[in-house]
């Protein structure tokens, strides 16, 4: 007994192994069961994947660090459910690589923002939040209106998402660029393909109000309008655990 300890601490490798073993078991035991959780998590057969335009918008949301001030995770607390809507279910973020649950609400939770405001409201709000909400602390994101959206490589983005487990079809990957354009230009020839591939209820509209160009504003508004609407399982499930 004594000799074992004595040698352990005289031996640098022993110390290293002890640290690794002691430290990793905690994480392993806690995280491993989460990978079998699919068996118990609620099922959402109607859930669709992000369209290329929404994915591009999500990447802008990440790029600008929006998650630092907005959560996308409504907790199972009564006041949160009343303020923001049905509490978030695990399945709702199953296509979120990475998740954007957030950790701080300098601004409100936006897990169920989609459809709450018009496209025009979002564009004006992002252009200068204080035009609509004088007390707002949110930065003005005017450059989103100026920057053209990069859509040429969206097929590669979809392919990478498929590699980590999101069920994009070959058809979706091949038409990613056209679909991004079509979703923000309802009158264009490409718009029909979007609803064909992503469903009739896909939000196809002139998000930034300008038909000629595809801006980053188009993408971010398309993303904000899909928040909480990839599936309506939360609306249909009884919210049993509100505390």
């Amino acid at each position, binding site marked *: 007994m004594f000799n074992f*300890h004595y040698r352990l601490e005289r031996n640098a490798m022993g110390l290293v192994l002890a640290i690794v073993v*002691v430290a990793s078991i905690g994480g392993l035991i*806690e995280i*491993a069961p989460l990978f*079998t959780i699919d068996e118990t998590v609620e099922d959402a057969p109607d859930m669709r994947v992000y369209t290329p335009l929404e994915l591009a918008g999500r990447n802008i949301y990440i790029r600008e660090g929006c998650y630092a001030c907005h959560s996308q995770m409504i907790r199972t607390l009564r006041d949160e459910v009343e303020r923001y809507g049905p509490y978030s279910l695990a399945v709702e973020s199953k296509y979120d690589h990475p998740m954007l649950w957030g950790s701080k609400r300098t601004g409100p939770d936006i897990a169920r923002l989609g459809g709450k405001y018009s496209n025009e409201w979002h564009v004006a709000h992002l252009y200068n939040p204080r035009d609509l909400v004088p007390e707002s602390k949110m930065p003005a994101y005017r450059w989103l209106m100026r920057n053209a959206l990069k859509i040429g490589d969206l097929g590669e983005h979809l392919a990478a998402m498929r590699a980590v487990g999101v069920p994009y079809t070959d058809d979706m990957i091949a038409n990613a660029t056209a679909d991004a354009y079509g979703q923000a230009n309802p009158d264009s020839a490409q718009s029909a393909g979007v609803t064909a591939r992503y469903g009739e209820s896909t939000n196809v509209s002139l998000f930034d109000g300008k038909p000629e160009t595809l801006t980053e504003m188009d993408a971010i508004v398309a993303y904000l309008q899909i928040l909480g609407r990839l599936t309506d399982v939360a609306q249909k499930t009884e919210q049993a655990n509100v505390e």
Partner: protein
Amino acid sequence: MSFDHDTVTGFAKSFGLFYLIAMSIGVIIYAYWPANRKQFDHAAHSIISDDEDRPCP
């Protein structure tokens, strides 16, 4: 696969407890083992000794 969710969580919940207890007992025995006292005292004093600031040859 027999590793369904309930099995894995059940193992995590029970094993975790025993692991914690065994770990605590082991560490306390080691720290308070009488024969270890001398080297611990030596280690504690070693850093404040007045030896010159250079490596052992």
